[in-house]
């Protein structure tokens, strides 16, 4: 029996769901899905959306101090993209029956998380380059996989996002190139940014497979297609030659090519540190949420005014029609 037949002959909603996943097709918003699939999807998409939105802050920090109009225009466009990515993702999450306001509330109260990478400060201009190169590079590695994830609206949002992320990574690497080939001080600045962002970037892929509570179920449901460790390895293999080309050194004494595995071996990741940051004790956790809540609260009157204006316009149109 072909997988297509399996889908059409499924008699219960569960069988239909399993058959659609099994045949590599997507689950769509109005399909039946297990409650846990729905809540897992909401948690993951919301967390992803929140990451895009909070991710505007570390880079936005440098917009007013960008060293040239060219860099300023690029950085503004990139930060605007991050806002857009957040909106694509909120839109996808809403198809699962959660409201935008509920997600905002859960972010603000800490009940939903965002990626820990955005809890690190951007101390120098080179950090903007390192974020584009490493953080967006790591994000792309994960997101390319997610273009084939089993929930349709999420997969489609990912396609849109991946098209735009490539610009983000390339502009970051170009910045690093410029700095690495600049004055000794500029090269030091680039090295310092790499030193600080390397390990947090590796942590972006999440805990090791052995400790990842969601991986097994997420893979069975076609939400994830590759494991955290496999994605992390791919990122390391891709990035080491790029660092070599810059003439910068990755801050890992255990990093070396393993000709047997045909992959780079890398050192132990400090997972205790990772969990500390997840628990809210990173360098910028409080600052990020405080800033987000303030922006939301200060925008309240604008949202109310827009609704009042829309209502008034609607009323005058109805009167005009009489």
């Amino acid at each position, binding site marked *: 029996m072909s997988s297509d037949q399996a889908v059409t002959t499924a008699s219960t909603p569960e069988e239909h769901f399993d058959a659609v996943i099994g045949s590599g097709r997507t689950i769509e918003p109005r399909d039946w899905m297990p409650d846990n699939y729905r809540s897992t999807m909401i948690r993951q998409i919301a967390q992803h959306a929140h990451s895009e939105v909070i991710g505007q802050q570390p880079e936005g920090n440098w917009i007013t101090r960008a060293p040239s109009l060219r860099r300023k225009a690029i950085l503004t466009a990139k930060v605007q993209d991050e806002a857009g990515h957040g909106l694509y993702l909120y*839109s996808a999450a809403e198809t699962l*029956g959660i*409201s935008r306001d509920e997600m905002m509330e859960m972010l603000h109260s800490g009940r939903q998380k965002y990626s820990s990478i955005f809890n690190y400060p951007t101390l120098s201009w080179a950090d903007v380059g390192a974020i584009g190169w490493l953080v967006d590079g790591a994000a792309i590695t994960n997101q390319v996989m997610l273009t084939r994830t089993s929930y349709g609206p999420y997969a489609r949002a990912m396609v849109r996002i991946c098209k735009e992320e490539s610009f983000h990574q390339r502009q970051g690497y170009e910045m690093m190139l410029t700095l690495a080939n600049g004055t000794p001080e500029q090269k030091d600045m680039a090295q310092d940014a790499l030193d600080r962002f390397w390990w947090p970037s590796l942590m972006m892929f999440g805990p090791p497979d052995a400790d990842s509570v969601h991986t097994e179920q997420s893979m069975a449901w076609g939400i994830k297609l590759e494991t955290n460790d496999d994605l992390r390895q791919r990122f390391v293999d891709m990035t080491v030659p790029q660092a070599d080309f810059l003439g910068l050194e990755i801050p890992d004494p255990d990093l070396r090519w393993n000709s047997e595995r045909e992959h780079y071996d890398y050192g132990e990741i400090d997972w205790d540190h990772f969990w500390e940051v997840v628990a809210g004790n990173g360098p910028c956790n409080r600052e990020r949420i405080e800033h987000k809540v303030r922006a939301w609260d200060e925008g309240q009157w604008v949202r109310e005014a827009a609704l009042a204006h829309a209502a008034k316009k609607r009323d005058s149109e109805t009167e005009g029609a009489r």
Partner: protein
Amino acid sequence: MVYEVPKKDGATDPEVAGNPGGFPLWEVFIRANRGLNHVHAGSVHAADAESAVQAARDVYTRRSEGVSLWIVRSTEIHASDPDGSDAWFGSEHPYRHPTFYELPDEVGHM
């Protein structure tokens, strides 16, 4: 195409389920180029149609993805029943397809 109307279990009004008390939800359709249909791209929240068009432009067309936008209130979309989709779309009528008819090679391409 089955339109994606966000809906909570048991809820009848997607707008209320979508964002109680906030901006209503609008579905966005983009015409990528002349000669093509408008295709669904996603949704935006906005107080009225005018600002929904502006928001859709900012969110979905930052890189010349389109030459035209349609905005539709999500509540105005009526969809087919996903549970009945096999009965609706699954029927086989092979004689409606050109390959159903076997013609001799001598006839040539048709």
